[in-house]
Every structure is written in C-alpha cells, then in structure tokens.
C-alpha cells in the first residue's frame, strides 16, 4: 500500500518528500492504510489457516449463528463456513476493485492525453464522448452490459472500468491542455522528442496528483458496484464467492439469519471506507484542489 502513497516523480528519497510527510500526519488516511493492509493480509493468509474450506457443505450445520464451534462467523444456508467464504470472496472483490481502477485510470489517461494534446475537433469529440458516458447512470450501464455479456470476474472488471474512466479523462485533458504550450514542452519538441514521449513522460506526470486521488476513490466505487451487481445475481457467479454475491439471498433469510447480511455488508463498508479515507489523505497530501469533498 505504501507504494500508492508515492506521488513524487523523483526516484530518490521520496520518503522525505512533503507529500509523504503530510500523508503520514493524516490520521484517517493511516487508519485506512492499516485497515486495508490487515484486510488484504487476512484474505491472502486466512483461507489457509481457517478450519473449513469455502466450498465444504455441511447440511447439518446450516444457519449456524456466529461463534458456533469453529464457525467463527456462522454458516450460510448450505452450511458452508462464512469466514472462509468471506476471505476468499475478499480476494476476488479486492482484485476486481484494484484491476478496475488500474484499467479505468489507463483508459482515462489515454483519452485525456489524446484529447488534450490534439485539441481541435478530435479533442472536442473525445470530450463530448466523455460527457455522454457521464450522462448514463453507471449502475444501469453496468447492469445492462453484465446481463448481456458473460459475467466472469474479468468481464465485470472490464465493464466497471468502461463506466469509470471519465473522471480521469477530464482531469488529464484539462492538465494537458493547459501545459501544451508551455516552454518545457516546446523545448522537448525542439530536442526532437517524440510526441508520445513528451505526453507520457513530460506532461502526464504533472497531473499525477489528481489522478492518484481519483484512482483511490475509483477502487472504492468499483468495490461498491461489484457488490451491488453481484448482489443482484448479474455479477460474479457462484460457486466463486464475492462480497456481493454472499449478500445474494441474504434478504430472503433476513429474519432467520441476519448475520448472512451483516457480515459481508460490514466488511464491504470497512474496505470502502478505508479507500475513501486514503483518497482523502492523498488529496490533502498532494494538495489537490477539490471542488466538492
């Protein structure tokens, strides 16, 4: 996680930079980092340590409440251990969240750089295209695409990325457009550097702050979206567990077994809160001017 907190372009002694120091003073952000680290470790190590396999069905132990025997978080309607499923699900959900963030950030940066640098008709067309994507409620778009296409974890990741690249695209486009005519870009051109070198090595690093902040918040949004789509049954398909599809069916057993809903829901909230805290800390540390949050 500490690598995400490295905003400086200088490879040497980045840990002395002002941004890192400011981030380390941000208590909420540190709490977020700690919680995410713990959660990630638990998801990686947990399944090896826990006494039950996530797929082991024990029909005699159906609907055991938490702390029954070795079922620390209880069992589901098939008698499977919820703790084992929760941690395995975390691997999928966190991975989907991260991958969607990486993919959408790359897409956004690419669109933003092209639109900002080319400008003119191409730039305007790309930015109107970005605006058009923002007009669709992302939940509709994600659900429609997930229902139409095959909902593997990879596909869900791509679909979420497809609906979340716009913010980064706008940030990058604005930054590139404002830097396009600056002296260091002209100097680069005179030195005979290629356009892509100037764009990605010289101009883009200037927009790193807002991009990193947007990326950390995108992880949070991607986890929420995956949870919702899977909750409805259009996301990650069982027997592969995800935090969202563990909640699928929880509504049905709400009176009988409330822990089915509470355990994954609290975990999702903890994970998403952590990423939002981290995003907030990064915004302060990187001195990103925010209009709303």
């Amino acid at each position: 996680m500490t690598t995400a907190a490295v905003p400086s372009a200088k490879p040497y002694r980045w840990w002395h930079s002002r941004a890192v120091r400011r981030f380390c003073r941000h208590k909420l952000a540190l709490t977020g980092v700690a919680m995410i680290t713990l959660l990630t470790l638990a998801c990686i190590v947990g399944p090896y340590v826990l006494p039950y396999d996530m797929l082991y069905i024990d029909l005699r132990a159906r609907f055991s409440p938490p702390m029954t025997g070795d079922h620390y978080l209880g069992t589901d309607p098939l008698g499977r251990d919820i703790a084992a499923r929760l941690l395995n699900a975390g691997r999928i959900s966190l991975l989907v969240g991260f991958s969607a963030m990486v993919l959408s950030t790359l897409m956004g940066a690419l669109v933003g750089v092209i639109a900002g640098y080319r400008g003119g008709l191409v730039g305007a067309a790309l930015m109107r295209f970005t605006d058009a994507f923002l007009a669709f409620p992302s939940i509709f778009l994600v659900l429609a695409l997930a229902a139409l296409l095959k909902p593997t974890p990879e596909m869900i990741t791509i679909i979420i990325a497809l609906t979340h690249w716009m913010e980064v695209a706008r940030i990058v486009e604005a930054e590139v457009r404002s830097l396009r005519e600056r002296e260091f870009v002209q100097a680069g051109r005179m030195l005979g550097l290629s356009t892509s070198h100037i764009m990605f090595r010289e101009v883009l690093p200037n927009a790193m702050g807002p991009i990193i902040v947007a990326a950390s918040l995108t992880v949070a949004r991607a986890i929420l979206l995956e949870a919702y789509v899977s909750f409805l049954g259009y996301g990650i398909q069982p027997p592969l567990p995800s935090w969202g599809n563990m909640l699928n069916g929880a509504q049905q057993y709400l009176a009988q077994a409330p822990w089915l809903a509470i355990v994954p829901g609290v975990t999702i909230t903890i994970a998403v809160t952590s990423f939002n805290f981290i995003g907030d800390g990064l915004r302060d540390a990187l001195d990103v001017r925010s209009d709303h949050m």
Partner: protein
Amino acid sequence: MPAFLLSRLWQSLVLLVIVSIIGFTVLNLIPGGPLAQFALDPGMTQEDLDRIARQMGLDRPLPVQYLDWAGKLLTGDWGNSFRDGAPVLQVIGRHLWATFLLMGSSTALSIAIGTWIGIRGATHRYSVFDYTATVGAMIALSIPTFWFGLVGIYIFSLELGWLPAGNMYTIGDGSALNYLHHLILPSVVLSLVNVAIWSRYMRSATLDVINQDFVKTARAKGLTERRVLMKHVVGNALLPMITLAGMQLPGILGGALVTETVFTWPGMGRLFLDSLGYSDYPVIMGLLMFSAILVILGNLLADIVVALVDPRIRLG
C-alpha cells in the same frame, strides 16, 4: 435568451446525439442483436431469421440503420416490450412517477439536512461537529445503499415492526397516509448517501463565500450574525449547489434505482431489473436512453435556473 444558454442548448443536443450512438452500440452488442426476440423461438429456422432480418432492415449498412433507429426515437417510437407488447415509452411512463416520488422526497429531505450540516460545519470549522460530520459523511458514502436498505428492513420492519418492508402501498388501501408509511424507509435509506454528498458540497460552498469582502461589509454594517449568514452567505453558497444538483443527478437517479430493487418499489429501477430478468431488450434499451436523456435535461435545467437566479450570468 443570452448566448450562454444557446450554447448550452446546442451542447445538450450534441450530447443527445452521442448518447444515442452509445445506446445504438449497446443494442448491437446484444447477442443476436435486435433479432434476439425471434432467436429465442425454437420454431425459427435460419431462413426465417434471415427473412425477418431483411424485413426489419438489418441487412442495411449500420449508419443507415442508426439513422432509422434514431429517427424512430425522435418520433416516440421506442419499440414494444417483449413481455406485454405495450409501447416502451408507455411502460416507462407507468413507472416514472414512483421513481420521481422517491427521488423527490429523498432529495428534499437530504437537501434540508445536508444544507444545515454543511453550513454548521463551515461556520464551526474544525470543531467536533465539523470533524464528526466529515468522517460521518465519508463512512456514509462507503455504506452500500442496498445493504443499508437490508439493515433498515431488519431493524424497522422485522425487529420493531414499525415500517413496511417493501412495496408502495398495501393492496386495497390507497390512502395517502398508507403511501407515506411505505415511503419513509426507502426515502431515508436513499437520503443517507445524498445527505453526505450535500453536506460536503454545502460546507465547501459556504467556506468559499464566508471570507469574501461583501460578507465582511455586511458584518461591518452591524447586521446580526444570523442575518449575515442567512441572507448574504447562504444565498450565495446555494447558487453553485444548483449546478451541482444537476451534475449529481446520475448519482441520485442511480441511488434511487438501487433502493427500489431492495424495497420492491415499482419505479424505473425495479422495471429495469425485471426487464433484465425477462431479457426484455426494448425496455432495457429504452430505460438506458431515457435515463441518459433525463440526466442531460436535468443538467440543462440546472444551468437555466442558475442563469435566471444569478444576475452575473444574465449580464455576462
């Protein structure tokens, strides 16, 4: 009409065209494309499908098909639902007002609470209240809305038995009070996220205004702090909120759709989900396009309202 609004109108039209292109692309992503409804019928042979494709004009080049499809959208011919054959626009119209009722009540509630929290947070900056509100808003934004709905149902319907767990009214009882009773829980659940968003926006909008010269002037004139706040600060802080409300529209609409699915609220979100279950593509496509158009019109409306309220824009 000032040039600003004309250019906004023109931008919205361009957006609508692009939105329709995206919609058309999604339509053609459907396995089997617009033919999907016939492909499901086991009695269909490939020759039948080819013939229908010719009859529906699917053998024409894509740009021609797009123009035809977009033209039909303009004239209100959005196709018919696979489920009951009713025109798509009519189906959407039946569910529209339920969503609007939910969105409207929740937005009113969250603006009232959010504005108050935001102003208080800004005037008592870095106080315990401000800090709690900031952290609280971040946590509220992190709680999955659908899960918060489940928790609400568990506590208030199953455990306490105070509020109904779903639907819009009790069958056989159409009184306003009954509707209101069913509205409370989904409306409050939807408001959680919206209060968080509004209070953050309002806090920073108030902070932008509170240190400006005209506020100092108002204080120097000897106005009471309350009058300065209500008349000079809040009035000006609310202006950018109108634009933000427009920008926030996809989020609010999306939240309403999520809430509807948990509470079996018979609005557009519920309709969308039911249509997905039946592979009712014309309705799915219709809702996709309809919500995007709604958002674009909402943004346009917000800009018009701001221009009407803010004299600086009218002059400039």
